[in-house]
């Protein structure tokens, strides 16, 4: 069972097959896995298909002449929405965690074996046996420390090179001193070697790093599955009338590309032939399609909704307006990289204190006249006993538990520093469309329709990509309606859908804007019926804003929309608002607030929010947001409800509370243990017990966060 879908022997020999990856967010059960894998495996030119359930992705190995969008289409025929995954822009650090896990495994191996030997030394092995065990420990420990300690050594080296200090500096000094001393002890048949303490220290600290890395990877994979990706390429019409497929990076200005209905544009351009409606949601977050015809400018990343058009490319690749905004965001995000994480902040005070303590102990015992050897032993014991386990393990453990709890509630936090910054926020700015509102029209009066009318409406809406049709379709499907059988369904750009139902003519007209909502006419024979649609406020928005207020984050709306529609929403949720704000205005407001000492949380979705999301102290975007918005934000929430925003802030604040408790626990433990070390009473046995006990306590404390996101 569970065989990877059959690899045809002959086909698999051709080494030049290609692996394409697709995001399929709708994979939710074993049935989906087998349906997709078996469905694709039967196709010609596809060698194998493998579903990754955890990341909701499908990897398809296929022959080069099969195009990615053809496979995407096949997955869609199987009943799943699919997105082509290009080289994942967020995955560059994925290999880092794998390296850390290997280092952790090696440290774990070394720790267990050295502990095995150490226990016999502690239980009274003497003379040559003890020396032999110390030697074997050294033989295991030195390569293990060399392999597993690299992450700390290299990070400490980097920090020192730039004249800074971070948490890894005291760790590295401790590791090197303790290893050197233990080696010396071993050579001179000394009584105490600290190899197991050193390896254990590395193991616990690595565990913290691994947790941190896994949390980041998990969120990044989740978010990359949501990304809507600009088109991977376009069908190019050559002078001689032939068409060929060209990938995005090979597109050049003045090429003419044919864009079918339902396709994303791969480059900026001017329409040469045809007219169609374009969905700019990816760029602006506004759901209302815009009608563009010959001579109009269309932008990369927008979706062609209704009719095929031919577009002459004016800018491609790095020159598109999409890339311009990306650059603006890079600049806006610069200052955030100066944020110092809580553990490193603590290390700034902790490391010098510990180092001077160890040095003072050394000097004191030298003056007391016990000899340099005994003095050095005592100062190394101080270093080991004060090992910053609490900083290295407690902070990531707390953050990983909290982000796991949030993930189950549909909030993906990109990394630990995001949680720290989220807890510090004291003001919140909301975008309107797509953030406070759902960003898509929802029908209001469908319950007035009779069942056959609903069935016809569903059948018509199903055949179109228009956001209004999607809104009607989703609402009807949620009501368990099955579509009617229609013939000759066709979509007239700018007019709507029409078809015949038995003998009657049926149509779903184009939406008309009536004051603050959309209205769209359903025609069945001679009967006319108006379906009213509105971009509704997200469920629970009011209570979420209320909660945020109680958590100490008063809010304001800042929107690019006109004053009238902003005023309506601001009344509905009870917030003050600033309307008609350009991306620069939003950026300006944020820098004004930061200058007056506020830490701003920005909640927004569109491309126009991108710079603001990047510039704010911390930011959250909904899962329906533009790619740009999701990449710029620190956290993404996937539900329709607005409550996750309040939940994320609440959990972040609770996490920081636990982190502070962990610091107090760690300091308390040091207060007890350091005097022992200073007086020279700490043996390797006591150090090992103390270290594991303190680590267990802080991890146990962090686990209490598991139920925090309720």
């Amino acid at each position, binding site marked *: *069972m*569970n065989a990877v879908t059959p690899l045809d022997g002959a086909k698999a020999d051709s080494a030049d097959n290609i692996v394409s990856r697709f995001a399929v967010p*709708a994979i*939710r*059960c*074993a*049935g*989906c*896995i*087998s*349906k997709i894998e*078996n469905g694709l495996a039967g196709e010609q030119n596809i060698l194998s298909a493998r*579903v*990754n*359930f*955890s*990341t909701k992705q499908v990897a398809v190995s296929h022959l080069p002449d099969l195009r990615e969008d053809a496979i995407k289409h096949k997955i869609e025929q199987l*009943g799943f929405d699919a997105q082509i995954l290009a080289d994942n822009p967020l995955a560059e650090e994925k290999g880092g965690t*794998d390296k850390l*896990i*290997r280092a952790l*495994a*090696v440290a774990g*191996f070394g720790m*267990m*074996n050295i502990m*095995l*030997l150490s226990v016999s030394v502690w239980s009274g092995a003497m003379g040559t*046996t003890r020396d032999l065990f110390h030697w*074997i420990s050294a033989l*295991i420990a030195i390569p293990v420390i060399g392999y597993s300690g690299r992450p700390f050594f290299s990070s400490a080296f980097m920090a020192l090179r730039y004249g800074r200090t971070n948490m890894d500096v005291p760790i590295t000094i401790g590791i090197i001193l303790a290893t050197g001393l233990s080696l010396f002890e071993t050579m001179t048949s000394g009584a105490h070697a600290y190899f197991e303490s050193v390896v254990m220290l590395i193991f616990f600290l690595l565990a913290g790093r691994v947790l941190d890395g896994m949390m980041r990877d998990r969120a990044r994979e989740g978010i990359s599955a949501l990304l809507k990706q600009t088109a991977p390429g376009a069908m190019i019409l050559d002078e001689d009338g032939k068409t060929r497929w060209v990938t995005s990076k090979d597109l050049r200005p003045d090429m003419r590309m044919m864009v079918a209905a339902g396709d994303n544009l791969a480059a900026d351009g001017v329409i040469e032939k045809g007219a169609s409606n374009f969905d700019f949601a990816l760029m602006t977050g506004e759901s209302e399609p815009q009608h563009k015809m010959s001579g109009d400018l269309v932008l990369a990343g927008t979706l062609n909704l209704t009719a095929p058009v031919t577009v002459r490319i004016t800018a491609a690749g790095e020159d598109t307006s999409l890339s311009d905004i990306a650059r603006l965001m890079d600049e806006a995000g610069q200052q955030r990289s100066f944020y110092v994480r809580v553990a490193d902040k603590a290390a700034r005070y902790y490391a010098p204190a510990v180092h001077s303590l160890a040095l003072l102990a050394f000097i004191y015992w030298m003056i007391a006249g016990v000899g340099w050897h005994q003095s050095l032993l005592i100062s190394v014991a101080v270093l080991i006993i004060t090992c910053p386990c609490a900083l290295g393990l407690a902070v990531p453990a707390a953050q990983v538990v909290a982000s796991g709890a949030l993930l189950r509630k549909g909030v993906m936090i990109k990394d630990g520093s995001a949680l720290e910054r989220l807890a510090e926020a004291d003001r919140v700015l909301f975008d309107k469309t797509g953030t406070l509102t759902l960003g898509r029209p929802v029908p209001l009066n469908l319950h007035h329709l009779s069942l056959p009318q609903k069935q016809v409406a569903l059948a018509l809406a199903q055949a179109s990509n228009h956001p209004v049709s999607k809104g009607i379709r989703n609402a009807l499907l949620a009501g368990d309606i099955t579509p009617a059988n229609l013939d000759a369904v066709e979509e007239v750009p700018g007019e709507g859908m029409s078809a015949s139902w038995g003998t009657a003519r049926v149509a779903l007209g184009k939406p008309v804007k009536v004051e603050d909502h959309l209205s769209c006419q359903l025609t069945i024979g001679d009967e006319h019926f108006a379906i009213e649609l509105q971009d509704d406020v997200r469920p629970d928005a009011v209570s979420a804003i209320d909660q945020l207020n109680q958590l100490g984050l008063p809010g304001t709306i800042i929107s690019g929309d006109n004053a009238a529609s902003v005023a309506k929403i601001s009344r509905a949720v009870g917030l003050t608002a600033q309307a008609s704000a350009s991306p620069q205005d939003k950026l300006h407001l944020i820098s004004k607030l930061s200058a007056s000492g506020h830490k701003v949380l920005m909640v927004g979705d569109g491309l126009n929010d991108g710079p603001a999301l990047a510039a704010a102290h911390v930011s959250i975007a909904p899962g329906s947001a533009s790619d740009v918005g999701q990449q710029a934000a620190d956290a993404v929430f996937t539900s329709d409800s607005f409550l996750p925003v309040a939940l994320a802030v609440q959990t972040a604040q609770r996490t920081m509370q636990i982190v502070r408790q962990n610091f107090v626990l760690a300091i308390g433990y040091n207060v007890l243990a350091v005097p022992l070390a200073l007086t020279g009473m700490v043996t390797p046995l006591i150090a090992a017990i103390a270290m594991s006990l303190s680590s267990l306590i802080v991890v146990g404390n962090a686990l209490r966060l598991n139920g925090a996101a309720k």
Partner: protein
Amino acid sequence: MSGLAILIPVALLMGLSGLAFFFWAMRNGQFEDLDGAAQRVLIDDEAQTTTAQDDDKMDENHDKV
């Protein structure tokens, strides 16, 4: 003492082989899809021959999730 000469190498070797197995498993992608492994248990061997109706039923279940 003579027992140690055997037992310590045995302990080390077992540890090392465990480590090597773990490295192999990581490189082999055994940990890539932990949730998927839990789901795949439920797929029947006969999944290939399921009728369209069965597939539809699965769809319904999955819509309700």
